[in-house]
């Protein structure tokens, strides 16, 4: 009963409608024993932060293929912080140009997983980030 379940929110902020990657990641996290809250397409950062709060998640995965990551990611961080959820881990999927990666990592993103990433990679990263924090 009292086992620690990792809860992850998977969201697609912005306007692109390509949610296959998000669904694949959601499914892989499910198969890794996590509880995945899937919010669907076209979420604003405000909607994502609100869902992260209500669901008390450990991590938020953002799938962005529209190129708007440098605007959306900082906003999500800002709102999570405003809600008192600094401890929530944020990871990215989708298409992110190499030159943006260092900046995003500096903001606090724990990992950026583009197409072709093995699911073990992000499953292990998320588990490690969440469990070391809450040990």
């Amino acid at each position, binding site marked *: 009963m009292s086992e620690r*379940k990792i809860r992850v929110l998977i969201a697609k902020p912005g306007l692109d409608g390509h949610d296959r990657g998000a669904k694949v990641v959601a499914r892989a996290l499910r198969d890794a024993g996590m509880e*995945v809250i899937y919010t669907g397409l076209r979420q604003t950062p405000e909607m994502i932060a609100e869902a992260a709060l209500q*669901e008390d998640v450990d991590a938020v995965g953002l799938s962005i293929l529209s190129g708007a990551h440098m605007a959306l990611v900082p906003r999500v961080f800002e709102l999570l912080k405003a809600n008192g959820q600094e401890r929530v881990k944020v990871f990215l999927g989708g298409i992110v140009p190499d030159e943006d990666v260092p900046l995003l990592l500096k903001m606090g993103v724990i990992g950026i997983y583009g197409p072709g990433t093995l699911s073990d990679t992000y499953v292990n990263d998320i588990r490690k980030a969440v469990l070391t924090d809450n040990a």
Partner: protein
Amino acid sequence: MDLAQSVLAGDRLALARTLSLVENGTAEGKSALNTLFPHTGKAHLVGVTGASGTGKSSLVNQLARYYRQPSQGEQPRQVAIVAVDPTSPFTGGAILGDRIRMRDLSGDPGVFIRSMATRGSLGGIASATSAVVQVLDAAGYDLVLIETVGAGQSEIDIARLAHTTIVVEAPGLGDDIQAIKAGIMEIADVLVVNKADLPGVENTERALRGSLSLSHPLAQRMLHHGKLVTLSAQPAAPSTEELVWIPIILRTVALDGTGIPALAEAIANHRAYLQSTGSWQLRERWRLQTELDLLLQNTLVASFRSSLPAGTYERVLEDLLERRVSPFEAVERLVDGAGRAAEEVV
């Protein structure tokens, strides 16, 4: 301020944290619930159940929207939604996807949505759902919509938890035999035929109506308490003077909101019926007794198991596997054996 006090003060982060602690069955969660419990009992608990794909989430979304912006003369309600989806029996993971249909509610501070996985429970809700609902009740949400997993026929735990149970059907899901089967059809206080814009809605409604007109088990159960009632096949306006609640059948189209005000009215009428007949208290009593019994069982079993000398349980289980004892004998042996062990200690 401790966690429970923050919940009572309306802190949403504290509420979310408390829900997790309660869901995980932690000591902190139990202690918070001890503080919160005296503040419960105010919310109207409305269960929404039915097969996968009948539109439960969309219907809950529309209902919540309605309660936030009701028709003239009514106060908006504080609405909490608990949406349950199944846990994988193989990996323990879950996809909780009910929020997808509830995006209209985003940004409204008068709505709190929480997704839950069943975590091994088979009755359509999780074993912690009741406790989670209590926390939301204490936090001041006066209407709690509880959406079960896609329920087929016998996932009826919701009827024990909710004051009012809505069973959602959709055209094309089964013939009139489905409508006379036992189980989920019997727990409905309100039957909704959703997707009523689809062909076949008349057939679905006729099958349900036909089934209800044969008899309603609730009526039979209530008969020796009071007067005989003639069951009507019509969607009789629920009268609070009548002893027996006859389930109402309503058509809705959750996508565009058709039929939602009528559904909200039916829910309100059912509440009035429960309160005027004393059934509200009966249901509360039934629910809390079920919960007490379940907790008592779990606690007794846990304390019994820990009182057994090391290896005893495993030895009896081994005998059972080898067919040396039957399950009845195994239990006898454990219970007697534990008694003897306790005497030896004395």
